[in-house]
């Protein structure tokens, strides 16, 4: 075997604290090493060409690059090695940057450690075997979880790209948070006028199957071949018959059901269609409040329904969908302001959340678009907005900025002046964050054209005085206490993860961050991918986002899926487990431990039972390898012998004395 070793300076990143030439010199003495050199930037074009040239000139069978983390450039160099005519797996990387030069200053000891890591890589490479990926067919269908604006955009983009789309929405209508909004910043255009046509597009698109009022129950399989069980919750209304006429809603005597669409501003009927533009526009019975379902005495909706769609005996059903990729667009939830006792949210009726205010501003909302105090139905003359309620506060576990509250507060303050001419508006803020096209100009308009009074400081307390509220806080620019009498207080609540995010993450086997938002593959370079192949993220489920950002990310996720499916087949990673049938005794312990269901029982021609790995399902996690007592299951490219060789290479060297 003839191996080549290339030691990278990474400019001064490595060379400043590692003697790269000395490492290359030491490598020349290692077994099977036929060529060793150092270069300033091995990943650069001339650096890669030097590898290709050396392979040809010295007849190399394998290449070691000692440079940065494999996460950074392993793919780069595998391609280089392949270009040089070698199998891409006849390549090893020694990380002498993150593991050596960036963590130690002693050049002599760093050089010794870098040499050790190169020796390990050489010993591993000596035992490497060429590996070849397998091609497997993909199901050219995509599951979109969540039918908010991000999910709608992703579904439409995928469907327009020729894919079959399965859209699963937890609520009875798609639209998500955006459907609840009255207007959108910074253009102040009507939210439902923008979103409505897109929702209709979803309903009418022949490539989109919509499962509303449904949830993802389980996911099995792998990229290209997922099998998803979708739980269709019981609506108690046969949607194939329901025309959305709303007769049942008008006549329903149970008027105390919660109305999440109106953010709790008004109660709903037990049978309900959340809003006029709902897609699908179908009624759903809330079984906890329906008199027929709770007491067995009512049945009004069944009597008035002209199409006979009511079915009190309905139970939930599960449908199975086969898809090749999954886009998660489950959005966010709004912060519950009751955590801040000093603001009186939930205690004083005239302290409301921004979403409740949004519903009040909406012409289709419970007040018909009139701004009215919940306590007495009077029009407020003075409205106070408090920003950062549940954002940028470490003490309540919400250290992050929700990003969109500054903007929607400005929008709501502007709309207040339109709805209630002459009303005075105040905004208590910490900092104004308006980085976006036309965003800062919009804030300026609120301040300068609409006379919104911006007070920089936090509110310490809100208390009632007569039928009004007193908002007491600090004005840090004036260095003074301020006290404002308000008729209505609007809390600009921040974003938090959607309920059920943790369960969904477990179902999809994707990571979740400390705040419950889904983890992207890389914060900069893989912002819509997850670390699970075939699962992508769109919108606020990955972190707080406004509408333009959610739509952009949704289109990006759709582009990723379309790219994934562009070829009819996918190549499986050959770094998977492999059972040696001569060593397998058929105990099937591996089958029991495999978290991916990638091992199946197989009967050999001799009649004996053995384990077999399904290569396309195997994720290469290695659980089976450590479970197998005989070492009959070996993870390709990380076999016991390869790892033991690395350990031996390290342990056989006398350790340098410290100090």
């Amino acid at each position, binding site marked *: 075997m003839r191996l080549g070793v290339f030691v990278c300076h990474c400019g001064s990143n490595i060379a400043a604290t590692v003697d790269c030439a000395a490492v290359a010199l030491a490598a020349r003495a290692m077994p099977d090493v036929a060529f060793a050199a150092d270069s300033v930037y091995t990943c650069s074009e001339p650096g890669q060409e030097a590898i290709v040239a050396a392979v040809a000139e010295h007849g190399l069978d394998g290449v070691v690059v000692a440079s940065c983390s494999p996460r950074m450039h392993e793919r780069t160099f595998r391609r280089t090695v392949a270009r040089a005519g070698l199998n891409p797996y006849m390549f090893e990387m020694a990380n002498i940057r993150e593991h050596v030069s960036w963590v130690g200053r002693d050049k002599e000891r760093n050089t010794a450690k870098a040499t050790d890591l190169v020796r390990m890589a050489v010993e591993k490479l000596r035992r490497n075997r060429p590996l070849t990926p397998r091609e497997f067919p993909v199901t050219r269908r995509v599951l979109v979880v969540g039918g908010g604006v991000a999910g709608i955009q992703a579904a439409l983009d995928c469907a327009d790209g020729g894919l079959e789309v399965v859209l699963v929405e937890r609520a009875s209508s798609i639209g998500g948070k955006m459907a609840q909004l009255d207007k959108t910043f910074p253009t102040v255009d009507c939210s439902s006028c923008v979103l409505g046509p897109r929702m209709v597009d979803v309903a009418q698109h022949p490539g989109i199957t919509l499962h509303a009022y449904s949830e993802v129950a389980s996911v099995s399989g792998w990229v290209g071949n997922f099998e998803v069980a979708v739980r269709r919750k019981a609506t108690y209304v046969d949607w194939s018959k329901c025309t959305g006429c709303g007769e049942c809603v008008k006549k329903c005597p149970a008027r105390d059901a919660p109305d999440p669409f109106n953010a709790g501003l008004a109660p709903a009927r037990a049978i309900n269609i959340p809003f006029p533009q709902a897609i699908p526009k179908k009624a759903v019975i809330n079984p906890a409040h329906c008199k027929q379902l709770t007491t067995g005495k009512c049945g009004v909706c069944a009597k008035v329904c002209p199409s006979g769609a009511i079915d009190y005996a309905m139970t939930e059903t599960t449908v199975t969908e086969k898809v090749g990729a999954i886009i998660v667009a489950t959005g966010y939830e709004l912060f519950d302001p009751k955590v801040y006792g000093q603001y009186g949210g939930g205690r004083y009726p005239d302290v409301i959340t921004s979403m409740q205010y949004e519903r009040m501003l909406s012409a289709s909302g419970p007040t018909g678009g009139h701004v009215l105090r919940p306590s007495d139905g009077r029009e407020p003359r003075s409205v106070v907005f408090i920003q950062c309620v549940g954002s940028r506060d470490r003490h309540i576990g919400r250290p992050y900025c929700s990003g969109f509250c500054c903007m929607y507060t400005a929008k709501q303050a502007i709309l207040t002046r339109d709805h209630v001419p002459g009303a005075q508006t105040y905004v208590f803020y910490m900092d104004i964050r308006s980085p976006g096209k036309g965003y800062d100009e919009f804030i300026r308009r609120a301040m300068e054209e609409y006379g919104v009074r911006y007070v920089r400081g936090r509110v310490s307390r809100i208390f009632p005085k007569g039928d009004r509220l007193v908002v007491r806080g600090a004005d840090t620019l004036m260095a003074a206490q301020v006290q404002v009498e308000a008729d209505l207080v609007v809390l600009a609540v921040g974003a938090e993860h959607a309920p059920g995010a943790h369960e969904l993450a477990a179902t999809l086997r994707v990571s979740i961050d400390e705040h419950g938002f889904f983890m992207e593959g890389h914060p900069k370079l893989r912002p819509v991918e997850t670390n699970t192949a075939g699962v992508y993220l769109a919108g606020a489920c990955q972190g707080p986002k406004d509408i333009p950002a959610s739509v952009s990310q949704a289109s990006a996720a759709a582009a990723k899926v379309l790219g994934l499916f562009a070829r009819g087949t996918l190549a499986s990673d050959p770094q998977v487990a492999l059972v040696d049938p001569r060593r397998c005794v058929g*105990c099937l*312990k591996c089958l*029991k431990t495999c978290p991916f269901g990638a091992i199946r029982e197989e009967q050999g021609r001799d009649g004996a039972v053995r384990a077999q790995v399904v290569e396309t399902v195997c994720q290469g996690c290695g659980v089976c390898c450590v479970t197998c*007592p*005989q070492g009959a299951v070996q993870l390709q490219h990380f*076999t*016991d*012998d390869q790892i033991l060789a690395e350990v031996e290479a390290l342990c056989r060297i006398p350790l340098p004395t410290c100090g």
Partner: protein
Amino acid sequence: MSTAQDAASLETLRAELRRAACDALQAGAELVLGWGPGPDPATLAPLFAASPGECAALDFGPGAVQNLAGHLRALAGRKVAVCVKGCDSRSVAQLLAEGLLRREELVLIGLPCAGVLDRTRLAPGAPAPGDWACAAPDELLDPRCLRCRFPNPVLADVTIGPGRAPREPEGGPHADLDAFLARPVEERFRHWERELGRCLRCYACRNACPLCVCRDHCLAETRRPGWLSQSSSVREKLLFQVIHAVHTAGRCTECGQCQRACPVDIPVLTLKRVLAREAEALFGHVAGTDPAQVPPLLTFRAEEPTIPDHGAEEGR
């Protein structure tokens, strides 16, 4: 010393055992695995009876030291009857839990046990210190029998003889382990270096283990993967024992066959007992008590509620 009454009941027990064995043969078993007369009065030897005539030699008593469950895997595919003590029945239950045996191929003849002899405590050629009806004195018993939690078979189709009470040793069943683990790690390491210095690498421990199902595919005797070398260093010997202990972690029923089989009396059972105790503490799992249970190391859960540091990755 047996009295006339004991002798009578001894004969009754033997008759019952032999009848049960004949019944098993009649019911379709090809073989009955049990014990018969040994080379000396204190010893019983394994006896595989294939006919009613051979069944007439079956016997049981404190000399029945072998765990006959170890033979079952090799007889898989044939219907056999096997005599099991409490500890042996746990091996059967564990093998059933792992799907390595089929229940319908087994007839289990349960024999409640008052403890078996420790051969190292007997003088060569000494008379039998007890029999089935009359237990041997504690000081001649295998130490593990003195802390036995399962003297009665956990699984049996027919049970012969009176039930026995579990032992409740002073300081609990793990008192000796606690004392050993309280010693400093260097001292424990020196202990193993000293004990394993005698090891011949004969693998009698492995061959006697009812859970060692790899047999010809054992890691100890393969170069690919090459976990162990042929070097006779203590390091390699210790590594083999550690591998054996890890491979039986959460599975070992502490039947003690490994230690009994060791020709140079290395206390290898200690390693396995420590891991068995860990498995019990972490997962509440006692191996070989229920053929329907899932051994904790033969399943995968992303989060283990009893291993608290497992969620650390999430806080990244």
